[in-house]
């Protein structure tokens, strides 16, 4: 009886995931049937003519997540190495806690901070100087065209990077702490410097798990909603530069779902959700698999 109850609860979890997939497929079906494969490749998103192509939000999601990962990865690594190898024991706990608090701050607070505090500073000290420094026609010029108002693809990526950083740092730190002390000590005993111990011994030792940690961060960046909605500028067109406004799948759904103008519009938004589901669950599934493999090894 009690066992049955527990089993039912575990099965309810599976049912919830199944229901999630089913509801996205059923809800998005009208749009997928109407636009077919073009839904993924067409960049026109127009509620007035009821034509929906998701290429803009999809590309926006992939670009912001990739940029966020690129920015957060070295920082998360640095924080994890600092906490495991360099930090004085007294400071280890307070700094570790502080980094974890960064993970606890709600997404919407990041959004407000990004829009009202970060964006003006970014516009004044990064966007304007870069845009004036860029020679017309150069690569820098192409990358930095846009309105210097502090919102757009790159600012959204930076905020995302701050948000995923603590998750990646915490997972990496746990992984590094799981390296047997003997391995680390023998490397130091051979005369290796701290940098060499980390880069050639402990990090390779947890390689699989580290890739998993990075993908976990990527998964979060892909599905993050509120913070991005505040600062990405919300335009459905293909982003043309780093400072151009864009949109992600999640921000499009958040902005338009309650104001959808027609059944096809709603269906298109749910179909977008399905696309996001497929992308994130592939990434997160692989991430968990990698971490599992690492756990089995050590």
């Amino acid at each position, binding site marked *: 009886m009690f066992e049955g109850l527990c089993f039912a609860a575990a099965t309810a*979890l599976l049912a919830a995931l199944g229901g999630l997939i089913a509801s996205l497929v059923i809800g998005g079906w009208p749009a997928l049937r109407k636009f077919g494969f073009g839904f993924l490749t067409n960049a026109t998103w127009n509620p007035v003519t009821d034509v929906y192509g998701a290429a803009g939000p999809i590309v926006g999601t992939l670009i912001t997540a990739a940029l966020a990962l690129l920015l957060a990865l070295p920082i998360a690594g640095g924080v994890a*190495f600092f906490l495991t190898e360099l930090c004085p024991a007294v400071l280890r706990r307070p700094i570790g806690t502080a980094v974890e608090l960064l993970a606890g701050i709600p997404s919407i607070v990041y959004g407000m*901070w990004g829009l009202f505090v970060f964006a003006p500073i970014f516009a004044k000290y990064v966007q304007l100087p870069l845009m004036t420094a860029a020679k017309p026609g150069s690569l820098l010029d192409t990358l930095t065209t846009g309105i210097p108002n502090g919102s757009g693809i790159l600012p959204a990526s930076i905020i995302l990077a701050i948000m995923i950083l603590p998750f990646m740092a915490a997972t990496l730190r746990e992984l590094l702490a799981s390296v047997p002390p003997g391995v680390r000590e023998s490397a130091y005993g051979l005369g290796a*410097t*701290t940098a060499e111990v980390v880069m050639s011994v402990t990090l390779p030792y947890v390689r699989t798990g580290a890739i998993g940690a990075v993908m976990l961060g990527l998964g979060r960046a892909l599905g993050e909603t509120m913070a991005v909605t505040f600062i990405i500028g919300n335009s459905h067109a293909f982003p043309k530069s780093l400072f151009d406004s864009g949109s992600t799948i999640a921000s499009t759904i958040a902005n338009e*779902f*309650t104001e959808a103008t027609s059944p096809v519009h709603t269906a298109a938004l749910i179909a977008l959700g399905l696309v996001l589901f497929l992308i994130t669950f592939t990434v997160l599934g692989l991430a968990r698999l990698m971490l599992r493999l690492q756990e089995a090894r050590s």
Partner: protein
Amino acid sequence: MSSAKLVRRRVGDVAFKVFCVAVTALALVALAAILWSLLSQGLKGLNLDLFIKSTPAPGSPGGLANAIVGSIMMCVLAMVLALVIGVLAGTWLAEYGGRSAYGSVVRFLNDVLLSAPSILVGLFVYEMLVAPFHGFSGFAGSVALALLAVPVITRTTEDVLLLQASTLREAGVALGAPLSYVISQVLWRSARSGLLTGALLAFARISGETAPLLFTALNNQFFSLDLRGETANLPVVIFNFALSVDDGWRRLAWTGALLIAATVLTVTVVARIVAQEQRRS
């Protein structure tokens, strides 16, 4: 070894250390900057009216009472739902079927759900509980929040139960108690503080969630205790007010953000303290 190579290694090592310290400092500066903005912008609006008046029309004074009460009601209901399902599911994984193939599938998908985009949960609940009944409701919001809390609780429940000594189970069963009795009366009790940590972490996770509430609970301008209708809640009010042009609304949004962040951070710190207490005992 040539001294040039030695110098290069030393320099590389120093550069590595400087980099690690610098990026850690950068992360701490980001945290400090966010907290500073919250305090400097949010404290201005912190007064008694905030807790006793409802959200105002643009340009007039008011508070966040309806949103605070709505958020508390939805979070409490969500936590009750999530605790029942999460603790039972975690118990099944730890004590009954965790080693079966089905058990590892459940564990794997639970881990994936743990970091799934919350906005998808909102869409799911909209399709299940809002569209069929033609109306947004606080109940739908609670269910969405519960779905986000369950994976956290399942995970921590399994982890803390596996930490309990197997002699505890054996002793109970040897005395003739059925396993279900041993689990509910012995194991759950000895794992109490671990379960509490899980619940606190889950609460911290859901109390700031905005995306899943946008199209489940929606919002309500007025004070209401009825979860059957649209329910005001802090995150959605903050979202709407922050993006408005009204100064009073923006001030309320900052103060609301301060309230939420303070709640989440306090709960996170308490969860850590509880976890440490448990490790010590």
